[in-house]
């Protein structure tokens, strides 16, 4: 394979070379008009305009050919120019410093790179895609993401139903710090905050900002960004920055540090807990929940408060936040602090997203237990709906794990919904490192093992032969587990699930 900068251009029309130099970027008179048209319509728009209005050009009536050029804009007509090798090198160097891998993948998505090429790396292919995208929009087409390019990326992210991509780009481009006390920065079309009254011509008018912040346990923020913030990158940046700077509600008066544990016990609890929870936001959520001073770091005082909470909950008092204490804290948090509770699950069970997750958050509009954007090869969101708030602990863990399996598999580019669902259910059935779900649901809106097993088989039967071959071993493991769980059920459960068992047994492996 030839070095990228020596690849053949994808479109040769208008290709720049010493004999075909770059069109003028600024000027006066006819050239200034041409540049303006180029900015609006791209190089090919100029070419078409010249072709359609040759006479007008010759007679020096630029308005005519501009009009003709604009009339010619109805179709997909923008030429993709080729960056020179030095330009390409400069663009790669310039853009590499701006974005992390997740953001690059959002950028690669917005700029229309083919799914297989969205690798999260700024390289020649990516800067060429940026350049093409810039050219098509009449922007400076050097492949470098500058403020004007960012403005357009942001507005198009909203127009193309990818507002979270715009948010991610702005967070990264402007280095907005969201790691320590921000659970999510998400789009919510109508988000607004009343900012007071101002006088316009002597008339008092309410003033709103196009974003809002909700606070959860430990002062953790959930920032919602409204459509009105997506008018430019700086508008979006300012909206996010404003929300980041809002003071968290004042904590109540600090209680005296309990002394449930000896120093040695507290030290042991601290070491254990520190190893289990590494995300500062989890620390804050727990400190807020147990009434400890919210510092975002584990310390002995926090462990003493944890021990006090363990005592109140009637569980083993050791200051260690293991699965039982996590369940207690999750259950206490979930109703009023759903995003903080979700963070605990992700952190404690060490759920990974392979760098493909834009945000996981509670969304009251989601009618399902949870939902993941079905966008193979793109960074995606996971949204958790209200029905999930009443799931038992094991169900809640499985619910998030299922969605994050989608997130990882989407990154791999799996395009079949049936294969995704088979894999999500398989992960729940195998339940490695997670609490087991009961065989039957305990509530009509809940999910349970048998529902997972039923869906898993349904989706397996709908998968392509190639996918069934690829995931044959997983199916075998799933079948073994399903048969074992059914066999371990009560007589009534075995009778009720005899049909499902038979269906599993009847599967002929590919």
């Amino acid at each position: 394979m030839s070095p990228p900068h020596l690849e053949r251009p994808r479109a040769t029309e208008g290709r720049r070379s010493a004999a075909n130099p770059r069109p003028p970027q600024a000027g006066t008179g006819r050239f200034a008009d041409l540049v303006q048209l180029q900015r609006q319509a791209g190089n090919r728009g100029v070419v078409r305009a010249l072709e359609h209005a040759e006479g007008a050009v010759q007679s020096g009536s630029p308005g005519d050919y501009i009009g003709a050029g604009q009339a010619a804009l109805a179709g997909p007509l923008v030429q993709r120019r080729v960056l020179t090798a030095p330009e390409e090198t400069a663009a790669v160097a310039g853009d590499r410093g701006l974005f992390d891998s997740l953001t690059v993948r959002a950028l690669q998505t917005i700029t229309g790179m083919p799914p297989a090429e969205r690798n999260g790396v700024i390289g020649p292919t990516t800067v060429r895609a940026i350049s093409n995208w810039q050219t098509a929009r009449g922007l400076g087409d050097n492949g470098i993401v500058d403020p004007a390019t960012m403005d357009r990326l942001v507005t198009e992210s909203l127009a193309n139903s990818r507002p979270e991509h715009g948010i991610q780009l702005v967070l990264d481009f402007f280095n907005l710090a969201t790691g320590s006390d921000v659970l999510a920065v998400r789009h919510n079309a109508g988000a607004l905050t009343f900012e007071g009254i101002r006088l316009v011509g002597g008339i008092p008018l309410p003033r709103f900002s196009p974003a809002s912040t909700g606070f959860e346990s430990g002062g953790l923020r959930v920032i919602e960004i409204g459509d009105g913030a997506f008018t430019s990158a700086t508008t979006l940046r300012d909206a996010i920055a404003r929300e980041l700077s809002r003071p968290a509600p004042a904590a109540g008066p600090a209680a005296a540090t309990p002394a449930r544990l000896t120093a040695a016990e507290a030290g042991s609890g601290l070491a254990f807990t520190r190893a289990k929870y590494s995300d500062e936001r989890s620390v804050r959520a727990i400190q807020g929940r147990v009434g400890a001073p919210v510092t975002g770091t584990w310390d002995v005082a926090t462990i003493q408060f944890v021990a006090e909470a363990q005592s109140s909950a009637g569980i083993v008092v050791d200051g260690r936040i293991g699965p039982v204490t996590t369940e207690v804290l999750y259950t206490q948090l979930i109703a009023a602090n759903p995003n903080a509770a979700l963070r605990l699950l992700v952190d404690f069970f060490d759920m990974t997203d392979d760098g493909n997750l834009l945000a996981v958050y509670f969304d009251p509009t989601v009618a399902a237990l949870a939902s993941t954007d079905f966008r193979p090869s793109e960074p995606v969101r996971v949204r958790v709906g209200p029905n999930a708030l009443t799931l038992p602990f094991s169900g809640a863990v499985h619910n998030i794990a299922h969605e994050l399996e989608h997130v990882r598999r989407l990154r791999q580019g799996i395009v079949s919904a049936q294969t995704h669902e088979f894999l999500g259910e398989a992960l729940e059935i195998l339940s490695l490192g997670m609490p087991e779900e009961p065989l039957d649901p305990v509530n009509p809106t809940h999910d349970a093992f048998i529902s997972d097993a039923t869906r898993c088989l349904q989706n397996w039967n709908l998968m392509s032969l190639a996918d069934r071959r690829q995931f044959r071993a997983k199916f075998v493991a799933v079948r073994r587990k399903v048969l074992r769980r059914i066999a371990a059920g009560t007589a009534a459960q075995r009778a009720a699930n005899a049909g499902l068992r038979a269906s599993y047994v009847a599967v002929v492996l590919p």
Partner: protein
Amino acid sequence: MNATGRAPLTVRLSVDVTHDGVAKSDLVRVALINTSRFPVIVAGRLAIGYEDSSDREIYAVLHDRPTGEIVGGPAQLYHRAPHSADDLRTLDQGDQTSTEFNLDDWYTHPAGDLDLQVVYDPSAVAQRFPGVESAQVFSDPVRIVFTRAC
């Protein structure tokens, strides 16, 4: 189907469009109406999904009007509990139950002149709850012009 051979249920859609059919919102309201003379047990949850997905009672079908081709596709991988007995409803003659969903949230679609149909498909629910009327019901197509793809 009922004893007379006519489907006892009708699906009606309501979408907010201009007089030219241009979508003003992506909200789709769906009503399931008993048009027979007899009570009918229905899968009252009316949860939206896709034709080949599970744990859904309705799904949408989008056609490109000029060509008649089916267009669009699923926009979500969702996780939902099975339909429960608590959600079954008995509709008496003329009764209806309804739901709504945001089309852009659930379906990708191209820009252009499209026909939207919603299908009530309780077959999976009927397998578990034998009293449920199991026939699929298609709504009449509703024209929607989308100015942008989603």
